[in-house]
Every structure is written in structure tokens, then in C-alpha cells.
């Protein structure tokens, strides 16, 4: 996809393993080896106990839509053809929250509380973005 013109993640020391895992279609978070706390975004220490000893753990990739918005305004040329597009806050089953998008559905199908699972969008040969898709049916 040579003409992919959306912003790409900035890879740095702490998040490099996260993006390497995504490229392998694995969804991971940092886990503290001292207190077992699981956290994102990646950083130099545990945000619970400040221990520097961090490991990487596979997440289930399952979660729930906490809330979402539908973006109608074009702030970046790369999203021009996607408008209106959604951005969602996902409560992961492991207890943390991340910002992402829900794909493979119409925006009308979204709802707070709907179950989702991770899916991987290989946007360039180097970069894969973890996104989410709906699972199950709308309850209300």
C-alpha cells in the first residue's frame, strides 16, 4: 500500500515491542514482574509500583466498547475518504482501556457496552494497527 497517507505510530524505545508484536498479529501489553500489573501505553516502569522490571504479556484481544465518537470533520487529509469514521475507547477484559477504531461494520451498529475482539490492519509493510470488530448481536 504505497499511498497510505494516514499518520503512522512513532516507534521508540518503549513501544517498539508492542508494534513488533502487532506486525506478527499479536496483541500485547506490558506486565510488571514485581506486582503483575498489566498496563499500556508502554513505558520505562510499572505505573502501579514503579518497578523497572517489565515483561510483555499476550492480551485476550476481547473487550467492550466504553464509548465512541463519529468523526465528521476532516482534520487530516489521510482520513478524507473515511469520513464519517469512528474512534472508540475499548475497555479490554484485562482491565485497561485503549483508543482504537471498530471496523468491518457501519457506524450505526456501534453501541456502548457492545462486545468486540481485536483484528489486525496491515496498513504498511512495516506497520500493523490493532483495531476491533463487533462480536455477538446488539442487545438493545
Amino acid at each position, binding site marked *: 500500500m504505497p499511498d497510505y497517507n494516514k499518520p503512522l*505510530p*512513532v516507534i521508540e524505545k518503549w513501544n517498539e515491542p508492542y508494534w513488533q508484536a502487532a506486525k506478527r498479529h499479536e496483541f500485547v501489553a506490558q506486565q510488571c514482574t514485581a506486582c503483575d500489573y498489566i498496563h499500556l*501505553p508502554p513505558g520505562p516502569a510499572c505505573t502501579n509500583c514503579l518497578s523497572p522490571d517489565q515483561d510483555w504479556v499476550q492480551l485476550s484481544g476481547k473487550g467492550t466498547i*466504553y464509548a*465512541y465518537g463519529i*468523526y465528521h470533520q476532516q482534520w487530516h487529509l489521510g482520513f478524507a475518504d473515511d469520513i464519517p469514521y469512528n474512534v472508540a*475507547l475499548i475497555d479490554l477484559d484485562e482491565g485497561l*482501556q485503549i483508543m482504537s477504531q471498530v471496523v468491518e461494520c457501519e457506524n450505526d451498529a456501534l453501541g*456502548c457496552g457492545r462486545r468486540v475482539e481485536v483484528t489486525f490492519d496491515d*496498513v504498511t509493510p512495516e506497520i500493523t494497527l490493532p483495531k476491533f470488530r463487533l462480536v455477538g448481536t446488539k442487545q438493545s
Partner: protein
Amino acid sequence: MGLQELCDTVCIVGVGDTKQGAVPDKTGDELAIEAARAALEDCGLKKDDIDGLFVQPSYGRQGDYLKVGLMLGLNPRVGGAVEASGATGCYMIQHAALLLNAGMAQYILLVYGTNQKTNRNRFGGALLEEHAPYGAFNPSGPFAFAFRRHMHLYGTTEEQLATIAINQRAHARLNPKAVQQTPITLNDYMSARYIVEPLRLFDYCYITDGGHAFILTTADRAADLKKPPVYIRGMGRQEAFRAYETPDLVMQSFQQEAVAKMVFDMAGCTPQDMQALYVQDAYSPAVIAALENYGFCPRGESGRWIQDGRIALGGELPLNVNGGQLSETYMVGWQNTCDAVRQLRGECGARQIKGVERLMCTYTGGLREHAGALILRS
């Protein structure tokens, strides 16, 4: 020394502002200096009386503390830059109150100036760089998410949210300083385009150029100045950086409830004692959050609570009677503090709240990280 002992010890004695809206012939720093001059005139102090200076950085690398200090020709004893976006002005007032109490300064000047409208700041970046690949641009996203969540949990409607923008526009029409004077109806609101749905055009602050400045001193010194002093009765603040780890943070309940406890404890009063409320309203759901988190109405009920004139001038809790950032001017909360002081002095003409002696101002900054509040009295 406990916070309660600081109650009523420091006053805002001078406020200054400039033309708001589009001011194409002036830089942000020029507007900051112009506002500082107006604040000095307002209280009758001379430039060289000032021995403390705080500057809020603004769009386009303006508002540099050293540069503004040089332009003002000051050698302040204390001061600095404070960076907490929409809560900065509030935090600076709190810093000033502590420094004045400690005797490290006698008269502290706070300034902010911006030409973000003329220079077309579209606030189009992602607040955290890891959000950009997903298209989460502009600071309004978390407010849209918060209102969506509110709709889901409590059945709040877009028509109920409309009341905030419509009410503030009606207030702005009584305020010659307000940039937006065209009345809006529910139909106008509902017909306006979505920006980040469920938020529409009128839920967004209106980007402006302009400057504001405040001067603070201790209560004993305040008595000798030109205008009636406005006392700082309560102060509160709370930061919240663990954004991804506290799920309800998007509703801002963690940080604002902590601020509420601090500010009401210091002031020795309750939300029901407030005769007016100013909410730093970058986006209208900020009002929903503040009303519930600070205890003005029960959780989940703000959509209904704000109806039937309750938050209008003349109502139970006049809210953003200047028009707020949705309609007066977008000065990251400084315009609300300025109007609050003028209300307590009785200078507000057609929008004057009759008999107002005690009110509250709340502030929010960043994605949702910064929260602060002040209770002011005449």
C-alpha cells in the same frame, strides 16, 4: 498551616482584557501586554509595583515567560510559566495565592495573549501521538465520548445538551464583549453539522484572538486599591495522568470530585451556596460533567436539571452568564474568571446577576488530566 487558613486571605484586585475575536494587527504577546496594562489601570497599581509574574504559553510559540517579562520591563522576584492548558489560569491564581501568603511577593501579575484565530490554529493534532493513527484528532473527542456514555447510561438526549449552547448564546447577547451575538434556536442547533458526533458545531468553543490579565495581592493590601477586592474563598485542584487505567476518567469524575472536596472544604460551603457557576467550556459536555461531579445536581440527571431556565440569568444557578467559550470568547478559562470578578463588583450591566456575592469557577485542561476550581466572593 491548613488550606482553610488561606480562605479569604488573597484577592483579585485587577482584571484586564483586550478586543476579542479577530485581532489581525496584533501578535499574541502584544495582546498579553495590552491586557496587563488594562489590569494595572483597573486597580491603580504601577508596573514597578509588580513583583510576581506568571505567563501562559499560547499558540505559535507566543507567551514565552522570559520574552513577555522582557516586553513588560519587569524584574519579578517570583514567577514562571505554567502549562496545564485549560486549567492554567486557575492554577496560576492558586500559585499566586500561596506565594502571596508566604510573603514571597506583594503584587502578582498573570497574563495570557493569543492570536490563534488570525493564525488559523485548527486544533487538528492528536493530543497523544499514539491516537493519531486512529484519526483521533482535536481535543473534542473525549468530550464526545463522555456525552455518548452519558446518553447510554442515563438516557440524556442531544436536545437536552442543546440547552447549554442556546442558553450561553442568549447570555452572550447581553454582553458587548461576546464575539457571537446571533441567537440560536433548538432547530438551529439540531440542524447544525456534527463535528465529532454526538457533538455539533454549537457545542464547540469559538476560536478567538485576545488577551487577559489579572493582578492579585493580599487582602490587607487590596483594601487600598481602586476597585472593590474579590476574595479567593476556596481553591481546589487535581491531576489525573493514569488516563487509561481509570475507566471513568473520561467522565472526569475522579479528578473533579477530588477538586470539589478540596474547594468546598476550604471555603466552608456547599454547591447549594453558590449564586452562579462558570464552567470552562471548551465543549458543552464540560458543563454536564461539572454539574454532576461538583455536586450541583445528582449524577446522571444534568440533562433534565438544566432545562426550564434553571441555568439562565435569573434562574436558580446562572451558568456562564458571559456566554462562556461557546459564545463570548475562547481564552482557555481566563474570560470566565474575568467575568466572575466583574459580576462580584457589580459591573456587568444587562447581564448582572442581582445580589451575587459568592460564585464558583471550574476549569478543565488537556484530554482530561487537569482539573481546578475557585470559589470567589465579594
